[in-house]
């Protein structure tokens, strides 16, 4: 079985099973095959009950983040050959309720996302033409707008595990994206939302999020920036609290 990818996959249906289990699957390896292709092979040929989320299979939609071989990755961007030499375990995103197998309930994640008011608040009526922005100002958002909301950071963070109300790295990256947008005028409001014990100050700078991010966004850096802004802001203007 030299040319086989060997996976051990998390299986659980909370309504039917008393506990989770792991099931082994061996997939014939093809050149260029990704872990996502291997999951499809399993679903098509070995076990039609297997389930996972998928959409673009090109690393841009954020559906298929899962824990593969010891770290969070997008299944579509990971070569199946990593499971050639020894069996690789695949688990769902952590710190979110399981719906079934590799599919988790993302509702808490989206609730945090919505809480931070994730939209531009320019504070004035729309002009006739565009609001201008210099290329230098635009470039401040460069990497932040790459976030695909895959929740790898959320799942890797020990603080999201211990505090359900913690906004988590993804929502804070989004906050920072608007905080650094030269067109946005709601910084004070934003800092109020993220400036408490369930916001940026819950972060213990573990940096798991920055290691987990498949887009190399460095959420920890965003959180540090927001902490700095919040601290300066609140120290200078204590009345805003």
């Amino acid at each position, binding site marked *: 079985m030299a040319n086989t990818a060997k996976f051990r996959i998390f299986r659980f249906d909370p309504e039917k099973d008393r506990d989770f289990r792991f099931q082994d699957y061996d997939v014939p390896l093809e050149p260029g095959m990704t872990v996502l292709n291997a999951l499809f092979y399993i679903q098509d040929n070995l076990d039609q009950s297997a389930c996972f989320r*998928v959409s673009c299979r090109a690393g841009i*939609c954020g559906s298929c983040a899962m824990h593969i071989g010891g770290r969070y990755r997008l299944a579509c961007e990971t070569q199946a050959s990593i499971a050639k030499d020894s069996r690789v375990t695949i688990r769902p995103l952590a710190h979110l309720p399981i719906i079934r197998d590799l599919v988790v309930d993302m509702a808490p994640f989206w609730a945090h996302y919505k809480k931070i008011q994730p939209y531009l608040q320019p504070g004035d009526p729309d002009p006739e033409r565009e609001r201008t922005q210099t290329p230098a100002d*635009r470039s401040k958002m460069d990497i932040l707008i790459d976030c695909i909301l895959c929740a790898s950071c959320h799942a890797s963070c020990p603080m999201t595990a211990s505090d359900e109300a913690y906004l988590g790295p993804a929502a804070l990256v989004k906050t920072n994206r608007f905080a650094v947008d030269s067109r946005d005028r709601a910084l004070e409001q934003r800092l109020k939302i993220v400036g408490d014990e369930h916001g940026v100050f819950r972060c213990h700078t573990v940096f798991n999020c920055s290691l987990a991010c498949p887009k190399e966004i460095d959420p920890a850096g965003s959180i540090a920036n927001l902490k700095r802004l919040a601290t300066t802001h609140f120290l200078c203007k204590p009345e805003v609290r």
Partner: protein
Amino acid sequence: MIYHDVVVVGAGGAGLRAAIAVNQKNVNVAVLTKVHPVRSHSGAAQGGINAAMGNNPRGGFDSVEKHAFDTIKGSDYLADQPAALKFTRAAPGVILELEHWGCPFSRMGDGRVAQRPFGGAGFPRTCYAADKTGHVILHTLYEQAVRFEHASERDNFKVYDEWMVTRLVIEEGKCRGVIAYHLATGKVEAIMAEAVIFATGGAGRVYLPTTNAVISTGLGLAIPYWAGVPVKDMEFVQFHPTTIYPTGILMTEGCRGEGGFLTNKDGERFLKNYSDSAKAMETAPRDIVARNMQREINEGRGIDGMYINLDIRHLGAEKIMERLPGIRDIAMNFVGVDPITQPIPVRPGQHYTMGGVDTDENGATCVEGFYAAGECACVSVHGANRLGGNSLLETLVFGKFAGEAAADYVLSKSALKKGEAALKQGLDAELEKFKKLTDSTGGEKAGTIRDELGRLMAEKVGIFRKEDELKEAWKQVKGLQKRFENVRVGYSGMKFNQALVMALEVEGNLAMAETIVYGATVRKESRGSHFRTDFPKRDDENFLRHSLVTWDAAEKKMKPTWKDVVLGLHEPKERKY
């Protein structure tokens, strides 16, 4: 029974924009989507979105009329010309609206939205955000959806994510609502609505390889088709010249717009050897470049006989990192090639469904209360070939128009909340269909049929088509449909039953494949993306018209008709670049 004034199906660019338009008219709207909105395929669009704004110094003489002309010429004169003009006129407005909503477009030195050249366009009019334009537009729209959701009272704006619509209920020529399968709970429910807008995207997965997401299947088109709404111009399937070999992932047209070269195994920029691309070279439109690439490969001048090199090395590391960073990531992650030092292996692959649900300029169809917008619709502004940068634009422009039209329709309607019996009947029929698939004793697997169909369509109904191969394809599609009757879904639980979802989608793929093969067979000419080696010339005398196919549910067969193209601005001419 769940009730909303308007139900939008699909939450990509067109669906979200439509829902926002409905909400702006203060009409209750719900979005039903089989994936979370930000997972929609609009997010994969890379290159940009066209609008005659003249921001680029070389675009000073651009105008909406010139944008319309390029669109019409690009369509090989199959676009309905007044619709194309309405489309390009609305373009600058939707770009500005997106910008006002916070969309992080790349910028010119003076701070205005940046624009770059694109294939088939007379001026640099493609607005972009590096090579992630679709991603930032989709996320901006979802952000606005959240804003509207926050702002709305009485649940006036609601998103149902992972609710997959599987049936459209029409009664006495009026739309009554939909049947939807909620993946997380396994429930199947009837949802009543005064108006339904389909924004389900293209049917790319009918083909293999395709740049399209796994979710972009024929089902979104098949649902209205089975309910009796005609589909139009299905034979027009766009093949993108540059999809990565072997996986089919898209390499943006921006690669060529920014100055990339296409070279054969001898390192020659072969496009100069073909009369239709000799002048524009790499910036000629997609159909022409794709055909000439396929000819090179077929005539043995491809690399390893399989692919062409997309060479952007001469742009230099700095420009590649600034303008095409996503492309570099994809090339490195999926084929292990760094485009700064090596050419990228590419070949043409299915990319876009020009055909779709037959609609007018406002997304309205022949069924009262039923609308379609975006890639699943066919207005038609793309005609026989869509220009790069016009598809994101289509989602926003026609999403908006369809949303407004649906809202106006609801506001003008007097008898509300009708059709409960028809919806219940639809629900029962759907449950029975699901049960038949999971209880089947047949030995066929939907996945096998899906792959065989994809390869068959690419091989026999692909870039080059001819009579005998189309006849063979017809026979084989019919054979696969027959085999589908014996498909068994090997899991009967209803919670996240992906095997069931896939089987339903494969059935949709088969229905749309049939309409594509049919259209390709009866259109005995070559126009835009549709190239018949046995009829290599365009034939305006006989085929300057749209092909329509209507499904007759009672007789279980399709009824073909034709519909004239609306001209009025430009007389058809030979198309050269």
